[in-house]
């Protein structure tokens, strides 16, 4: 399998007042195409920070992040935004759906950044909603949906533009076990059947079991790998 993400000597520090918070230290990581990677580790260990760096939401202090051969840390803000729209689907712990839009409207959002026509956008969003099993809820607002349904809309939004990478930060963190399992089934199916490369941050060992690989992050270093 070819390597999709290549991280080399990645360091990330934050300045908090006069204090320098060293979160990631010279971290190396390679993620092959089609991987389903679970990132675990204690709170504050830098899991979200790493995920955000891979997704181009933040910039490294030093080191490089190559995704499909492109060093994304060299892109400017506009180019990085376009890169995210083209290459990354995000799934958030709190779903982050726009409350004023319907499920359909939320899923169509990323497609506004493409050159698709309105009817193509509608069709694609409908297909994504069907994939997550929520076709009948297309016209519902987020507050009319359960947490598990909201997260499935979130996944539909993340995959609608067919991204290279699916990045999930504690996607089941706010869900009960049953809804969480449904979400994990979905992610696993996306990985198995569609070959989506997924990186998922989680605290839940049961969730991590679904992944192909589990990495543990501690004090800015990857300490252990379980397959």
């Amino acid at each position: 399998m070819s390597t999709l993400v290549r991280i080399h000597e990645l360091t990330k520090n934050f300045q908090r007042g006069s204090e320098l918070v060293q979160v990631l230290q010279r971290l190396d990581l390679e993620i092959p195409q089609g991987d389903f990677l679970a990132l675990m580790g204690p709170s504050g260990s830098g899991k979200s920070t790493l995920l955000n760096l891979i997704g181009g939401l933040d910039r490294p202090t030093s080191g490089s992040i190559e995704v499909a051969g492109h060093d994304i840390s060299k892109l400017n803000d506009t180019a990085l935004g376009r890169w995210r729209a083209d290459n990354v689907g995000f799934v958030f712990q709190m779903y982050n759906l726009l409350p004023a839009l319907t499920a359909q409207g939320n899923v169509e959002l990323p497609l506004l950044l493409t050159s698709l026509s309105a009817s193509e956008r509608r069709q694609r969003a409908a297909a994504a909603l069907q994939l997550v099993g929520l076709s009948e809820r297309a016209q519902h607002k987020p507050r009319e949906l359960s947490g598990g349904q909201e997260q499935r809309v979130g996944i539909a939004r993340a995959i609608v533009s067919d991204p290279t990478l699916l990045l999930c930060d504690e996607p089941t963190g706010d869900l009960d076990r049953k809804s969480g399992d449904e979400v994990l089934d979905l992610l696993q199916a996306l990985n198995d059947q569609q070959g989506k490369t997924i990186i998922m941050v989680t605290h839940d060992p049961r969730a991590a079991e679904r992944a192909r690989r589990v990495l543990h992050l501690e004090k800015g270093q990857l300490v252990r790998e379980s397959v």
Partner: protein
Amino acid sequence: MSNGLSQIITITASNLRSVSERKAASIVAVAGIAGVVAILVGVLSMREGFRATLDQAGAKDVAIVLRSGSAAELSSGLTLDQTRIISGASSIVQKNGVPAASPELYVIVDVPMRSTGTEANVPLRGVGAQATRVRSKFKLIQGRMFTPGRFEVMVGRGAASQFAGLEVGKSVRWGTTDWDVVGMFEDGGSVSESEIWTDATVLQGAYRRGSSFQSVRVQLGSPSAIKSFKDELSVDPRLNVRVLSEYEYFSEQSKSLSTLINAVGYTVALLMGLGAIFGALNTMYSAVSARTREIATLRALGFGAWPVVSSVVTESMLLGLLGGVIGCLIAYLGFNGIRASTLNFASFSQITFAFAVTPALLAKGLLYALALSFIGGIMPGIRAARLPITSGLREL
């Protein structure tokens, strides 16, 4: 980026649908802007009405002759001989061999205002038979003209409505003299309507003016005749006079007041405008901070800063437009046509005029509202677009 407009529309629509969740702050911003616009338009409509009155008053083919060096009739003085020489000038329109020249006297009397009861200065003008010939819009609307030689007055429409005790049939006492009000006149809305008129000869006697006058008003054939009229008088060694058109005279008279109204109007509007900007800023900051995570999500998905900023600014400006429309309505319903009187500092007399809320003023008010709300929206918008995405995503 493609679909730029639909990005903005989608985000703005999503914003606007959440306005109902921020009702209180939005109402404050709308009300603030409405108040500012109402006051701005109100004050400017006062100026507009004031200017319209003075414009009415100032015919360009009527000249006023004052003693040289006088800024106003009150400080002027002309002898009977001088008024005769002036009246003989060849540029003056003649009818049946009589020149349209009106020597006039001008004194100030105290009359209580209807509204407050406090005394105000009102001009009492002594005129002769020619007075109405140099005021083409003059019309008697009630009672009759005063009888020469009697202590009788007629009052301008504006003066009658603003001041107490000037009804036709009543009698008023100024100094040691009782005067009968015998008629009321209008003059096309001009300053004359703020005056009280009587027979010049009677006024000369009552105020011990001998046979002197203060001004001569003459009707010229055309506005351009003023130049030859001026030249004619200036070469006469017996005269030392200042000639200006009625129009020039009133613009000069009203300059200080117009300036004052302008200054006060714009200062008040500016100060209130600052307040309104803070209101709008506050509203938009809270709108933006309530949506910090949403905005960060949009940007994480790849939306640019521009759609975010413009959606915030659009929302602010829609609120501003609403406030502006409400403010204009308030100004129109509240001020348009209201009659007011004000002291003209140059002549120390009251001028009555109507507030005029014109379409141009309403447009100005709306523009002002949009400008205020633009400023109120752009700063929070830029801030929202600049906040690091990862910080925005952590927001609850």
